[in-house]
């Protein structure tokens, strides 16, 4: 079936555009960049139609990559139902975003560089989901982190973008360290990193009610997931990552890369199914992240930051779903989130593009007159993310919440309140942008069709994606999970609508209410507005001590004093010794002769002592 072709097309696009792209016209760059994703998408469709109904996994092994002692790691690619969903999301949504970027990046410098990095990202992401063992997955994992860094820092002339890229990479690295430790433990314990082999080995092991090796492994892997998927405590990079171009935010930081953590845990369900402790931790962290990010989203004024915190919050929902055992619902939410979150970001990009680069909500307003298509599509997306009945987000979010109710009712209630907050802040942004009077200084205009067409396609999926019945299709892969009664569904829908209504009241009916609430809640508002001071806390506790240590101990102490001193000192001492010995070469033959006699005498002496040279 040649699965390796799927990631190959974007890789070729990366190479061609990367090496020769500088000399290409924009149309030619588009041809290779978008064309490679088209090829990949078409091939994915063909593979999936050939493999339908995909009741068992289809694995292809190509060559043995690592052979060290008893450890064998092959370059193997697998396709099963989980992979199929992810492949469709990555190539499908990715294709739409590539098309959109051709319009959005029209007037930007570094056009070919952007597309080559975007293609490279596609390659690594596809490799990640197709991988059949942990190490190959990790290759893709690291690779998407690299592309994230490259693309966040795309506008490398600005300090803020560079720092944001570095921050993303470093924070991810911390998570990756946990991932690596988890992988090492797996190698130690199972002797292999292959998914299928580990799955069959684990099946015969008991479920760990108390902490054991499996719990350690799964917790460490989850640390990696918190880094990649921006959960507590490693979520701080995602809001800053908005410094990159908006299509990047849409593709990488909404639809695909940040869901890699969720995917990885779903892929490792055979491990997580045996460690209820870890799953509980996952659910808790997911839930708290969802709440925290949602509250912060209420106070942000940059439209991209609102959506960034919304991404963190929705990722929290996905982890909550996984944590309570509803794997297929979590993945379903990955899919619907890909649709509406990509749409939200692309729509934001359309707004930004239409008002000359402005991103502050306070300087937008009344845009529905000028950008009707963007208005309609963003309305669809906002309704989807709020969980309005009938839209895709409704089905996925409520599936998770009802599974949560069965697991622990209090989680359901917290999740419902968070859903209400989500609806509130999403519509806050929506109302601020599209209603009222235009508060900016530009001439707003609609975006070209190359940008609005993907918006429309995504809007269609945001609306109708819920009817695709994905969870049932995925369910055979995962352990069974109970869902609560349909009443729960209507309760959460009602809360979401309540959130929308409150937003309408505050921002449209009675403008000015927002400021009075902010003044009334005083310190609480300040706390939330400053994002709970998380960045400041990290800076004081971790960043500054590490930097000080590096500067004084490692740099001045170890590097300059010890290593340089040692090496240079050795050189100096040798020179000194050489200067002493140099005096032997006086040019006087008689001295030389005396030395020779002395030397031969010593030899004789030694030989004499040693027994006459026998």
């Amino acid at each position: 079936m040649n699965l390796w072709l799927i990631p190959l097309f974007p890789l070729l696009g990366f190479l061609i555009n990367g090496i020769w792209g500088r000399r290409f016209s924009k149309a030619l760059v588009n041809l290779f960049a978008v064309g490679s994703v088209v090829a990949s998408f078409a091939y994915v469709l063909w593979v999936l139609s050939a493999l339908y109904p995909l009741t068992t996994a289809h694995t292809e092994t190509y060559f043995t990559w690592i052979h060290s002692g008893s450890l064998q790691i092959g370059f193997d690619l697998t396709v099963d139902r989980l992979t199929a969903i992810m492949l469709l999301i990555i190539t499908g949504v990715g294709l739409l975003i590539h098309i959109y970027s051709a319009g959005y990046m029209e007037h930007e410098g570094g056009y070919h560089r952007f597309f080559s990095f975007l293609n490279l990202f596609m390659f690594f992401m596809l490799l990640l989901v197709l991988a059949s063992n942990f190490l190959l997955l990790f290759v893709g994992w690291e690779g998407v982190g690299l592309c994230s860094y490259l693309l966040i820092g795309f506008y490398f002339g600005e300090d803020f973008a560079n720092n944001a890229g570095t921050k993303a990479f470093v924070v991810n690295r911390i998570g990756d360290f946990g991932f690596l430790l988890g992988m090492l433990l797996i190698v130690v314990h199972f002797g292999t990193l292959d998914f299928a082999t580990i799955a069959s080995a684990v099946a015969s092991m008991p479920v760990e009610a108390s902490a054991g090796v499996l719990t350690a492994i799964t917790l460490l892997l989850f640390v990696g997931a918190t880094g990649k998927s921006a959960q507590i405590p490693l979520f701080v990079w995602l809001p800053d990552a908005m410094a990159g171009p908006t299509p990047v935010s849409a593709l990488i930081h909404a639809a695909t890369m940040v869901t890699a953590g969720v995917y990885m845990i779903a892929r490792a369900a055979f491990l997580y199914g045996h460690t209820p402790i870890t799953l509980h931790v996952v659910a808790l962290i997911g839930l708290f992240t969802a709440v925290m990010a949602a509250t912060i989203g209420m106070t942000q004024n940059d439209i991209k930051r609102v959506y960034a915190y919304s991404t963190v919050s929705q990722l929290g929902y996905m982890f909550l779903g996984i944590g309570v055992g509803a794997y297929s619902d979590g993945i379903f939410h990955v899919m619907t989130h890909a649709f509406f979150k990509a749409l939200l970001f692309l729509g934001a990009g359309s707004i930004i593009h239409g008002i000359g680069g402005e991103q502050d909500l306070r300087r937008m307003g009344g845009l529905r007159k000028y950008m009707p298509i963007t208005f309609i599509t963003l309305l669809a997306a906002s309704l989807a993310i709020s969980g309005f009945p009938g839209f895709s987000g409704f089905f996925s979010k409520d599936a998770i919440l009802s599974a949560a109710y069965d697991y622990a009712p209090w989680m359901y209630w917290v999740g419902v309140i968070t859903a209400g907050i989500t609806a509130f802040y999403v519509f806050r942004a929506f109302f601020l942008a599209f209603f009222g009077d235009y508060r900016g200084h530009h001439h707003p205009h609609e975006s070209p069709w190359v940008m609005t067409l993907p918006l429309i396609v995504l809007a269609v999926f945001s609306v109708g994606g819920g009817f695709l019945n994905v969870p049932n299709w995925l369910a055979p892969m995962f352990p069974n999970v109970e869902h609560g009664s349909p009443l729960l569904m209507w309760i959460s829908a009602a809360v979401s609508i309540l959130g929308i209504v409150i937003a309408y009241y505050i921002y449209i009916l009675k403008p000015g209410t927002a400021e009075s609430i902010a003044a009334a809640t005083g310190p609480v508002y300040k706390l939330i507005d400053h994002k709970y001071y998380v960045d400041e806390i990290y800076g004081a506790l971790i960043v500054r001590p590490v930097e000080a240590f590096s500067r004084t101990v490692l740099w001045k102490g170890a590097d300059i004093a010890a290593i340089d001193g040692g090496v240079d000192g050795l050189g100096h001492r040798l020179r000194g010794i050489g200067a002493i010995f140099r005096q032997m070469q006086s040019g006087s033959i008689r001295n030389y002769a005396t030395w020779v006699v002395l030397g031969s005498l010593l030899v004789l002496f030694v030989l004499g002592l040693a027994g006459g040279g026998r």
Partner: protein
Amino acid sequence: MHHVPLSWYLILSAILFALGIAGFIYRKNIITVFMSIELMLNAVNLSFVAFAYQLRQVDGQIYAFFVMVVAAAEAAVGLAIILTVFKNRKTLQIDEIDSMKL
């Protein structure tokens, strides 16, 4: 003491060799130094012949023979070199020919 033990010949050889070294170390004239080298070679020849006697083989004498031949060749070339050095440096004092120093 009716006969001389062979070891005395060897010790004589050692004494002559040491005298040769002494001449090499203490004399300043190049030609005298060269002659001390010849003295050393002779001392070694004596050693060879003594051992030929001890082992009742003629090989030791053959070696001494070759030593003589080589010493002759060496004397010829060495004295020619001394002549050249004298022409260039105008001195036969070995201490003044010291340009090969660091």
